């Protein structure tokens, strides 16, 4: 998501219901009406009791955004860390992202897209409080200072707390051009402050979507088609209704729902359902057939999406070819998907951990036959998102609305883990075929990359933003391939757009996990073919790419690249840019019983200014773990149209004993912040695969690595 708009900032202040100050900055709304002053929404609420609340439009799914965003605002407001509380925002165009006309959390865009906005919001609120204090104390504004949530008259020492000033501040005209602090004056930005959400996440009190408890709440599960695209032909609910606790059985668009007084009864009721299905689009589909078909198609030219120079006229040299296949992947967040709905005379309340508030609100409104303003999305903590809770089709919200509509009481619809693993919306399966011609000096004269992959945005509103009208190919299918950072004069990237009936979705770092595995494995292959060190080879080809170079050199240096390792161990490297940031990773591996074991990962990230270096490092560590699960084990396969995996036994993530030591280093930078949540994921698979090649001279052509025999 890269469409950056020019921000038309304007500030609106209004008295909050608490008698305090509410301040918001509206963003340009593309394709929608600008909010009127009566539906002002705000980022800052200062109660007359002195309590400062930050109303956050972004979803907290573990990435630490509540913390990082609050840090920016609190710094400009001269608040002590810990004096600001955080609350999730309702849906309103005022909260739309600066990257798209909607409220969402994704694309590693929260800090990059909110940094200047929140600096200005905080600084403007601070200025209003200073003006109010000047009037209150009868002194010039220039004689006042702010610190610790208090305005102080420097000469006399007289002071007033923000709480006592809030009501007056709310009546003042909002200054138009307040200058945020100079970086040298930052007290909170740039520091590894503790998270704002830790307490509730250690005592069981944090409210995830699945934890909503409303008066009269019922619980539902849905039986869905065993093959994608299937519809209910008929069903027999008698046995299900006989299960104690089951209250209702109803057909919904995606299957048959069982509503009960508790989740267990709903699960048992579902098990007793008899459903006949028809018309599955994915009937007979198998991953093996898909893989073979993709491999064949990748040998054909495809639609050229990026080209420079002339690949055919590049001259003769040592020719290399490499095929790299990646599987479907489920996101499998620890909190299974769920959403609760409560219909009332006032409309519809939806309680959900979502990354896609506007999309989900609109989908719920459409399905419920309500105007959008009658639907309220209450964003809860997300027990992991990784993209799965950002669905353009709002699958789990639509289902919950369909289940709860007409039932008369609130209903929480829960997916079991099996529903989640089998439920589609996967990272697309893909095939990459790369070729290179190396010149006498070992450097690539020509490079081609041909992919076969589904488009995530097919039939979604994102097509207008992300599909290249010239080629008909969406840009995220080949992201990470077209932006090849290495100096190659003759380059061609081509895509075969696949149209399988398997629902696909963005999975932490989207197209990059596929392309980075292929590109960073293949450049490694080129280095070895040229008999050059993989780090030195990359450095030579990264001329003019200072951020890549800085990250690569930092990671290699901290990892002790080139220094001896114990027998049986080897290192591998990868560097990849995504979401505006660059991450390099060096993995140290061995084989234990013939199976890959990753002992240590040293990473370096250039993400511009690190608002919270502690959380930046922790996100890279998180991305390494998430990516490592996929590298070693993760795959969703179909056989005869059905998903073969079901739970964590056959879709296993990395566990405690397999977690490598992870060191993360941050490239010092004062540039504008860039993405953090996702960019650590793409390099881990190629770094590990390259290390295994260094150890065994076996090149992994396919993920997960469980398919490759290294011994």
């Amino acid at each position, binding site marked *: 998501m890269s469409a950056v708009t020019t921000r038309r900032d304007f500030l609106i202040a209004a008295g909050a219901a608490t008698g305090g100050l509410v301040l918001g900055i509206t963003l340009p709304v593309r394709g929608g009406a600008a909010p009127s002053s009566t539906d002002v929404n705000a980022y800052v609420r200062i109660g007359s009791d002195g309590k400062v609340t930050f109303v956050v439009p972004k979803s907290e799914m573990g990435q630490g955004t509540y913390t990082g965003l609050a840090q920016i605002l609190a710094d400009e407001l001269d608040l002590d860390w810990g004096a600001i509380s955080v609350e999730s925002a309702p849906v309103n165009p005022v909260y739309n992202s600066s990257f798209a006309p909607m409220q969402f959390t994704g694309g590693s865009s929260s800090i990059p897209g909110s940094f200047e906005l929140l600096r200005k919001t905080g600084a403007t609120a601070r200025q209003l409080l200073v003006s109010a204090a000047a009037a209150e104390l009868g002194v010039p504004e220039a004689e006042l200072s702010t610190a610790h949530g208090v305005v102080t008259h420097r000469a006399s020492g007289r002071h007033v707390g923000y709480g006592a000033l809030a009501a007056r501040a709310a009546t003042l005209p909002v200054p138009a051009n307040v200058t945020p602090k100079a970086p040298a004056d930052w007290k909170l930005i740039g520091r590894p402050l*503790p998270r704002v959400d830790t307490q509730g996440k250690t005592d069981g009190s944090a409210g995830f979507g699945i934890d909503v408890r409303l008066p009269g709440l019922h619980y539902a599960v849905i039986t869905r088609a065993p093959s994608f695209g299937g519809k209910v032909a008929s069903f027999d609910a008698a046995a299900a209704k006989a299960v104690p606790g089951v209250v209702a059985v109803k057909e919904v668009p995606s299957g048959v729902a069982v509503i009960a007084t508790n989740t267990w009864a709903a699960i048992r009721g579902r098990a007793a359902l008899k459903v006949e299905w028809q018309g599955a689009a994915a009937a007979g589909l198998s991953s093996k057939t898909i893989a073979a078909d993709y491999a064949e198609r990748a040998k054909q030219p495809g639609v050229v999406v990026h080209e420079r120079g002339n690949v055919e006229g590049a001259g003769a040299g040592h020719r290399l070819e490499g095929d790299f296949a990646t599987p479907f992947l489920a996101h499998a967040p620890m909190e299974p998907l769920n959403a609760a709905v409560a219909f009332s005379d006032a409309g519809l309340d939806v309680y959900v951990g979502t990354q896609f508030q506007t999309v989900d609100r609109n989908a719920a409104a459409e399905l419920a036959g309500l105007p959008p303003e009658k639907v309220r999305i209450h964003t809860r903590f997300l027990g992991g998102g990784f993209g799965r809770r950002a669905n353009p089709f709002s699958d789990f919200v639509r289902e919950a609305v369909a289940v709860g509509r007409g039932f008369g009481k609130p209903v929480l619809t829960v997916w079991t883990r099996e529903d989640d693993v089998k439920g589609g919306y996967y990272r697309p399966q893909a095939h990459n075929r790369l070729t290179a011609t190396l010149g006498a000096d070992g450097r690539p004269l020509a490079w081609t990359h041909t992919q076969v992959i589904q488009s995530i945005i097919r039939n979604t509103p994102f097509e207008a933003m992300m599909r290249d009208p010239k080629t008909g190919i969406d840009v995220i299918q080949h992201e990470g391939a077209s932006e090849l950072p290495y100096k190659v004069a003759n380059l061609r990237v081509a895509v075969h757009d696949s149209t399988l009936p398997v629902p696909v979705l963005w999975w932490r770092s989207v197209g990059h996990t596929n392309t980075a595995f292929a590109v960073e494995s293949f450049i490694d292959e080129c280095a070895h073919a040229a008999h050059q060190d993989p780090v030195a080879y990359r450095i030579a080809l990264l001329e003019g790419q200072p951020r890549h170079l800085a990250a690569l050199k930092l990671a290699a240096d901290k990892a002790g690249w080139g220094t001896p390792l114990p027998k049986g161990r080897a290192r591998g490297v990868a560097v990849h840019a995504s979401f505006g940031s660059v991450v390099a990773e060096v993995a140290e591996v061995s084989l234990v019983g013939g199976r890959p074991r990753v002992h240590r990962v040293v990473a370096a990230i250039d993400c511009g200014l690190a608002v919270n270096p502690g959380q930046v490092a922790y996100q890279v560590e998180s991305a390494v773990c998430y990516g490592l699960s996929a590298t070693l084990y993760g795959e969703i396969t179909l056989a005869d149209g059905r998903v073969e995996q079901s739970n964590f036994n056959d879709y296993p993530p990395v566990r*405690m004993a397999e977690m490598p030591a992870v060191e993360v280093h941050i490239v010092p930078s004062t540039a504008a912040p860039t993405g953090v949540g996702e960019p650590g994921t793409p390099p881990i698979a190629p770094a590990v695969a390259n290390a295994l090649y260094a150890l065994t001279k076996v090149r992994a052509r396919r993920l997960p690595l469980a398919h490759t025999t290294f011994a």
Partner: protein
Amino acid sequence: MRIDVNGQTHELDAPPEMPLLWALRDLLSLTGTKFGCGAALCGACTVHVDGQPVRACVTPLSALADKKVTTIEAIGATALGRKVQDAWVAEDVPQCGYCQSGQIMSAVALLAATPKPTDEDINTALNGNLCRCGTYNRIRKAIHRAAAGPA
């Protein structure tokens, strides 16, 4: 069914085969204990039964007669539980946080049995607790921190 949870006795209108997890979450609104897999594969539902860590998602109510159940909501009332929670805060362990109730309950049980655990002890005791955010290394540090503190 009668069960003792966090020192309180509850009479539940529930079948004996109902897993403890759903009784806690849906009947008693003790939502700190999490549903992750329903098959004892992820550890998100870990609670203590007479001090031993068990997976509530596969523990039927019928197995709990005359036993005492402790959940994340009450573990902080014990000195060890408090110490572990404090260590979690000090190390800023949680990311999404969904698995952390189970992680903490497993960690408390480990430390109760093995006050100074080795890394290998931690691997063994915590390997059944999945985390998709990759907080394992900080969990390990937090357990060592809790173990190092005053008894």
